[in-house]
């Protein structure tokens, strides 16, 4: 009797979980194993492993060249985007949290860019705001101060293209992270502030530094991780904003796209995917360690 119940529960378990597990095997685990195998083989224009080449694909990807350049590009990009996103989205959350009148309006205004895709935002940035000719909004505004037209997206020196690349991502993602910080702020008990006033602290920087920031640590760690991982996977705005003919700034994913989809070299594309996956997993673990992700709050 008990045995029969256990067996019927096993069947029911697989009725619920089976479809997901089957899909996960076919579309997550099989691709990764397949690609892992391909990364040690020559696989030009074919997805069947043919000639074993050992680590050649990895060496090919990692020796000086576009893929390594793209890793450098990403590092520069992350160095800008991660601290800016954390500081600005936290600032916006504190600001919105402080407002009493029209708070919902401001929250929505900052949040609504999340509805736009990277493609739409890139389109606005490339064709209107950072258009290199005199009708681009940035050039119109700078023109008021007597600044000459800047070709934002094609000038290599100085690298003006970072301005549109960084601002477009900030515009799209700040509202999202602001919501996370707002949720964090709402969880801080009011008594903590009241107790500090009794102890003689004044509202402002002091309480922000000693109460708000420590209380938001979990949220901050999460935001740093999420923005970093998202930056590693940057593709859409680089693909749509930057000229495709010249290589000014390409991200690792763009290089994988070129290797696998344009040149049909699935061996090298797979090796690059493995390298990138490993890097992201390492960064996640390391970051968690450094910032004390595992610790209990």
């Amino acid at each position: 009797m008990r045995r029969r119940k256990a067996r019927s529960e096993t069947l029911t378990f697989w009725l619920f979980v089976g479809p997901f597990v089957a899909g996960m095997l076919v579309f997550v685990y099989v691709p990764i194993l397949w690609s892992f195998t391909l990364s040690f083989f020559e696989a030009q224009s074919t997805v069947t492993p043919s000639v074993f080449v050992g680590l050649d694909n990895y060496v090919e990807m990692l020796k000086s060249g576009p893929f390594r350049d793209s890793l450098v590009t990403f590092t520069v990009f992350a160095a800008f985007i991660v601290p800016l996103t954390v500081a600005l989205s936290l600032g916006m959350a504190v600001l919105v949290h402080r407002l009493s009148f029209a708070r919902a309006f401001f929250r929505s205004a900052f949040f609504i860019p999340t509805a736009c895709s990277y493609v739409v935002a890139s389109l606005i940035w490339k064709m209107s705001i950072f258009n290199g000719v005199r009708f681009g909004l940035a050039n119109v505004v700078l023109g008021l101060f007597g600044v000459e037209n800047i070709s934002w997206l094609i000038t290599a020196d100085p690298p003006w293209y970072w301005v549109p690349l960084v601002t477009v991502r900030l515009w799209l993602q700040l509202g999202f992270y602001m919501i996370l910080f707002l949720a964090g702020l709402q969880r801080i008990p009011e008594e903590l502030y009241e107790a500090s006033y009794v102890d003689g602290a004044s509202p402002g920087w002091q309480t922000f530094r000693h109460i708000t920031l420590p209380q938001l640590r979990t949220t901050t760690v999460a935001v740093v991780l999420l923005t970093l991982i998202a930056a590693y996977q940057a593709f859409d705005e680089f693909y749509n904003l930057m000229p495709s003919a010249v290589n000014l700034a390409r991200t690792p994913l763009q290089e994988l796209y070129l290797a696998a989809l344009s040149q049909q070299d699935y061996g090298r594309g797979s090796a690059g995917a493995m390298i990138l996956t490993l890097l992201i997993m390492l960064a996640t673990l390391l970051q968690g360690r450094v910032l004390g992700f595992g610790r209990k709050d």
Partner: protein
Amino acid sequence: MAVQGAKGRATTGAAYAVASVAAVLFLIPFYLLVRNGLATDAEITAPGWRFLPETWRWENVSELFDDPAVPFGRSLLNSMLVAVLHTLGTLLVCSLAGYGLARIPYRHADKVFYAVLGTLMIPSAVTFVPSYVVVSSLGWVSSLRGLIIPGLFSGFTAFLFRQYFLNFPKELEDAARVDGLGYWGTFWRVVMPNSLNFTAAIAVITFIAGWNAFLWPLVIGQDQQSWTVQVALSSFLTSQTIRIHELFIAAAISILPLLVVFLLLQRWLVRGVAETGIKG
């Protein structure tokens, strides 16, 4: 606030000033979409900034849909199908899995759960090459199947559903069992109807992600018939075979469904962001 004198009022004033400037900056791109989308190309490229077009050219909309060189209507339809089916499929597969993992006793359930957790470590965007290898072997390139099915098995969504169901009030389920319902009946008649808020939050986030996805649709949508709206916009943008006002009105139309979602469902959206943002 304990201290709210003249100084407090001054900082409040400053806060509103900063917030207002920031709000204007954040809304400028939307203004540009409308201004450029309903103007003529000559007005857009004229020297000297014109704040609004002289006349609102609503005929730009029909011009866009009638332009045979631009498969915009088809791409909108594709995106709608992809986003809706992606959302429904994800909810169905992941909620079932989450409930099974949370509630149904099975000897190897923990091993299955670890296999799901393992996928959270691997960012899906990075594995687009491996996934493409598999999907192209299945012959699913340039098809709706290829666009939708590989994305349904989100370990993260299944994980969120499991965490949610672990906290579902057990008394409700026990009552259903007393009434003679099995797991299947309990799930559909009791658990899901009482989980609509959570499900709606996940649904909104999933729909937005599906509508805005770019890399996978770009990889899979290799012929025009299977372009989603993002891929179509991108190809108009990079090839520049389209007039500027058409480009902008197309972009404006492409965000309309999401603006509706935003305005009508913001409550669930905010909850969904808070729910999914922090993996806890």
